């Protein structure tokens, strides 16, 4: 049963205050949100920071839900979501399987976002909201742009090759706590 200790140790070394691994649905999203909200309340986190963390969480979790629907095998639909609390920031991290063929498009989208400043992101957001149609899964491609705007930081991401078909997409957003 050493893995129990190892998981515990890893979590505390990375200052993780919440980790969920498994299947993602809207019901699970609601539970994770409610748990995180209680957690932030008990820490006594400032309202503005709490709202930013909450907003970024919603977009990350719903991205995973929408994406999971397009993966064929149950194992590939499993994903991970975690929140870490550092002295000066919260780190919201997610990880999910993605088709190797989707990497290029996703990478281009994230790099485009990272190359924009505050005003550029605002313009892109307004363009997308005006012109994009909701995809059948409910997204309007606005999620990552919104995350970048709410955090005010560059998005961090990585693709870990798994096999010929899939890679594991890791995505991290930072919310700075002492922003005044």
């Amino acid at each position, binding site marked *: 049963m050493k893995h129990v200790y190892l998981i515990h140790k890893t979590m505390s070394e990375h200052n993780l205050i919440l980790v969920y691994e498994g299947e993602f649905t*809207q019901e699970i*999203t*609601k539970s994770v*949100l*409610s748990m995180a909200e209680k957690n932030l309340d008990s820490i006594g986190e400032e*309202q*503005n920071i709490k*709202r*930013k963390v*909450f*907003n970024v969480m*919603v*977009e990350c979790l*719903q991205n995973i*839900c*929408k994406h999971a629907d397009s993966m064929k095998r149950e194992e590939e639909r499993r994903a991970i979501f975690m929140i870490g609390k550092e002295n000066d920031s919260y780190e919201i991290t997610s990880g999910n399987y993605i088709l190797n063929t989707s990497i290029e498009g996703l990478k281009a989208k994230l790099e485009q976002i990272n190359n924009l400043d505050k005003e550029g992101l*605002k313009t892109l*957001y*307004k363009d997308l*909201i*005006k012109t*994009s149609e*909701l995809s059948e899964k*409910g*997204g*309007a491609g*606005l*999620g990552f*742009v*919104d995350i970048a*705007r*709410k955090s005010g930081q560059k998005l961090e991401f990585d693709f870990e090759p798994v096999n010929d078909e899939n890679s594991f997409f890791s995505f991290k957003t930072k919310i700075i706590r002492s922003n005044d």
Partner: protein
Amino acid sequence: MKAIEIKGTEDTPTILLDKAAGTFELSGRSLPEDAAEFYHPVLQWLTEYATNPNPATELTIKLEYFNTASSKLLLDVLGKVEPIQGVKVTWYYFSGDDDMQEAGEEFAELIEVPFEFKTY
């Protein structure tokens, strides 16, 4: 015209659309995964209302959180009221919530309707 009264939940807003009472309000949290499905009856109601509106229509939007899927639908809601004569939007945001204030200002820039901003 029959009023719409949808009670809010942890991920969907409270919606009150009542022509006779002159109440047009969205409040709470809007985080549904399928925002298009949730807002469908609201858009339908507003389409019908726009054909024979009250002389003045004040739409109150007082949201604590909304996801990006909802933001697209909120723009659709505002698009429905845009052609109505005598329409006004009151956008409430929690005092100090710069993100929600900015979100309202962006909608105001996208839609040709007078916006009033209030904090709570």
